[in-house]
């Protein structure tokens, strides 16, 4: 208990003293037990007063101070600084709000205000008496970030972190980097190609010594927390001997002799590929891969290419990092069988397939399954904005992407005619210009309501689409299309085991969830685990990059100093009374409590690096074994008593 307390009561010009009898207050305060000095002052925040307080603390060896003035939101830090300058622990300072919550709120009741001020000051004194000197909790951190997913967001963030002097592990589940963007070909709104963009990023990534890239790599397990994560990685073999120069002609031949043919996921099943493959010639890393799952180890390829090594095995690697950034991206929505004729009609494909189809076709003709394509009908919001069942959210990028694809088609193949059967075009911002360009190209837009969706039927030349068009007074419009493109949106990755390993919360839409979309948009409730790009929500490339760079700034400022200061306001468990029940764990939003065994007894323990000091665990504890520093039972209860006295 403190017993050399200094109390200062501020007039705040006349803002307080006009309504609160400061002099009288001061007199009474001086008599309270434990109070060593009681003074009133015109402006407590004035430089001269601050100096005076410092002198008082030093000369009278005060052990704590109370200042009754304005709201702590204004000057708590100011006076904590005063305490520090006087050599006093800042947590042995209590600010009592007698302006906003007293003199101003009760200027209609001077007597009441004075009485209240007195009680507030008393409560402040009681609180400061029981205050503990606290130091911020300091934990060391590694200036290393693990980035999961080497798509645009992951690679861009890796480069930026490396620029800032942070070491990076960049891991990619696939054999090649680039994620969805590499499949995307020409991009809105700059008309760069995915290949170019990935090339720019990859060249930069490999130019840094501080970035270590693993392809075919996944997280197996995680331990530790903020500043000190220990991660176990599993790396799939590529089956090509390390550091060898590969002869491309031999590789081509090896591909041709490979007897395995599987659906090519890179082209969304439009083509087949071999077990030994590269998705496109300029793909990175510039080394082919043999996918272990499909290879039957016949050895035909080894006969041609001695660089191939079919005996390579999974590799397990342990890495130590300070923070984790998830940029795992999204999957395209896979339409259900027969959804608008998908997989039942010959000429129904998804937008993603169309993107690949444009890439696979020559410049003269667009053909699909050997048939020349002239009329292309885009059906929008497939798998997005569903009122029942499926996804309720809007996938954000698809309107613009479909329109941009239509423009590309029109520019590349003059006689193409595009029909956009949509639910209201959402080309927000500058993307609106693409919508205009496509319209002016002669693309026809038809709009339908969710409850009257278009029908796609087989016809002689392709498909007949019937749609009730709200832009033509709900008239039923019929059109013939050679190719039906389902504009499918984004869904969370099918395989999201990483969320389980890292305990990243999943939102209503099944994407990873941030703490707060505005306050902390790239942080998760797991400290030092950040999310960016399309794993968080459907996004365009630019938006993904914005979020990736944002996460970069946050991660860097957290771990680059080598140590992390945490607020000392933490929950504490009374180990003698705790009878493990787990209720506190259920309610804690930060997974900051774990079960431990101590002296043969199961009890809860606070993981200090995770605790944010919200105190939610306290009221649920049946044995009242949790106290929040600064808000302990004795502090609060003595304040209550002082307030009522």
């Amino acid at each position, binding site marked *: 208990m403190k017993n050399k307390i200094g109390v200062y009561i501020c007039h705040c010009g006349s803002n307080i003293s006009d309504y609160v009898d400061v002099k009288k207050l001061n007199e009474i305060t001086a008599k309270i037990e434990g109070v060593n000095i009681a003074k009133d002052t015109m402006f407590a925040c004035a430089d001269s007063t601050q100096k005076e307080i410092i002198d008082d603390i030093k000369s009278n060896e005060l052990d704590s101070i109370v200042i009754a003035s304005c709201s702590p939101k204004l000057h708590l830090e100011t006076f904590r600084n005063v305490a520090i300058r006087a050599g006093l622990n800042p947590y042995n300072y209590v600010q009592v709000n007698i302006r906003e919550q007293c003199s101003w*709120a009760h200027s*209609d009741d001077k007597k009441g205000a004075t009485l209240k001020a007195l009680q507030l000051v008393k409560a402040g004194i009681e609180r400061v008496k029981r205050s503990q000197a606290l130091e911020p909790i300091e934990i060391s951190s590694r200036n290393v970030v693990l980035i999961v997913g080497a798509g645009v967001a992951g690679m861009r963030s890796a480069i930026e972190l490396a620029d800032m002097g942070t070491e990076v592990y960049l891991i990619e589940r696939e054999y090649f980097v680039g994620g969805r963007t590499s499949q995307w070909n020409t991009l809105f709104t700059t008309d760069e190609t995915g290949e170019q963009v990935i090339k720019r990023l990859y060249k930069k990534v490999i130019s840094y010594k501080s970035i270590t890239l693993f392809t075919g790599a996944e997280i197996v397990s995680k331990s530790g927390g903020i500043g000190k994560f220990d991660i176990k990685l599993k790396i799939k073999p590529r089956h090509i001997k390390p550091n060898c120069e590969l002869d491309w002609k031999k590789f081509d031949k090896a591909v041709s002799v490979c007897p395995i043919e599987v659906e090519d996921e890179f082209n969304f099943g439009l083509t087949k590929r071999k077990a030994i493959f590269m998705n496109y010639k300029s793909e990175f890393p510039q080394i082919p891969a043999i996918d272990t799952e499909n290879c039957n180890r016949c050895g035909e390829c080894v006969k041609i290419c001695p660089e191939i090594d079919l005996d390579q095995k999974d590799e397990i690697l342990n890495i130590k990092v300070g923070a984790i950034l998830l940029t795992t991206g999204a999957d395209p929505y896979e339409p259900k069988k027969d959804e608008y004729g998908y997989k039942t009609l010959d000429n129904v494909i998804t937008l993603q397939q169309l993107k690949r189809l444009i890439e696979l076709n020559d410049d003269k003709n667009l053909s699909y399954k050997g048939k020349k394509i002239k009329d292309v009908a885009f059906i929008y919001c497939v798998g997005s904005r569903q009122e029942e069942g499926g996804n309720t959210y809007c996938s954000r990028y698809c309107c613009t992407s479909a329109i941009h694809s239509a423009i590309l088609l029109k520019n590349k193949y003059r006689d193409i005619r595009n029909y956009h059967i949509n639910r209201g075009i959402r080309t927000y911002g500058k993307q609106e210009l693409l919508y205009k360009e496509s319209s002016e190209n002669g693309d026809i837009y038809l709009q339908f309501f969710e409850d009257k969706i278009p029908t796609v039927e087989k016809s002689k030349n392709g498909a007949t689409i019937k749609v009730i068009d709200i832009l033509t007074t709900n008239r039923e419009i019929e059109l013939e299309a050679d190719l039906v493109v389902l504009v499918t949106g984004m869904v969370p990755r099918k395989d999201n085991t990483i969320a389980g390993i890292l305990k990243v919360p999943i939102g209503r839409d099944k994407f990873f969830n941030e703490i707060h979309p505005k306050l902390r948009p790239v942080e998760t409730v797991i400290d030092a685990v950040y999310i960016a790009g399309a794993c968080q929500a459907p996004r365009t490339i630019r938006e993904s990059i914005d979020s990736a760079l944002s996460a970069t700034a946050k991660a860097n400022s957290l771990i680059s100093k080598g140590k992390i200061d945490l607020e000392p306001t933490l929950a504490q468990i009374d180990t003698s009374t705790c009878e493990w029940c787990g209720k506190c764990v259920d309610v804690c939003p930060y997974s900051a409590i774990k079960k431990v065994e101590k002296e043969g007894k199961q009890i809860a323990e606070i993981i200090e690096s995770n605790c944010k000091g919200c105190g939610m665990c306290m*009221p649920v504890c049946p044995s009242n074994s949790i106290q929040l520093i600064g808000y302990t039972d004795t502090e609060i209860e003595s304040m209550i008593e002082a307030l009522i006295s």
Partner: protein
Amino acid sequence: MESPKILVFSTEKISDPAIDLTGLLKKYYPSTVYTIAIPCSSAVKPKWIMHAFEKGFAGVFIAADGTDCPFSEKCTENTGNIVSHTHEFMKEKGIDPARLKMAAICSVCTDPFVKHMKSFLKFLTENKEQKN
């Protein structure tokens, strides 16, 4: 006759700034309203509330974070649970559960705060008179 005393548990980030702003805007509420600020409204212990009643507070008001809570989406639910638990304790002790109230107060919700204080005080005063 002295008017009944109300103890308000406010939250440092959200509802306490609203109570500050109430004073700033010179919107008056009774001077027998006392505030203790804590990090989150879900951290109020029933024990504290019971202590306040024991020591003579006529009413306790939790100015909750509601959906604005910076800590958890479940704050409203958690605070609600605290209130209902405390209500049980109050019933055991023969205290009218209506003497404990909770409402979400956003960081600029000055009018709602004043309204709540005035009506709560009115209720407590009437209640007290009836008892007398």
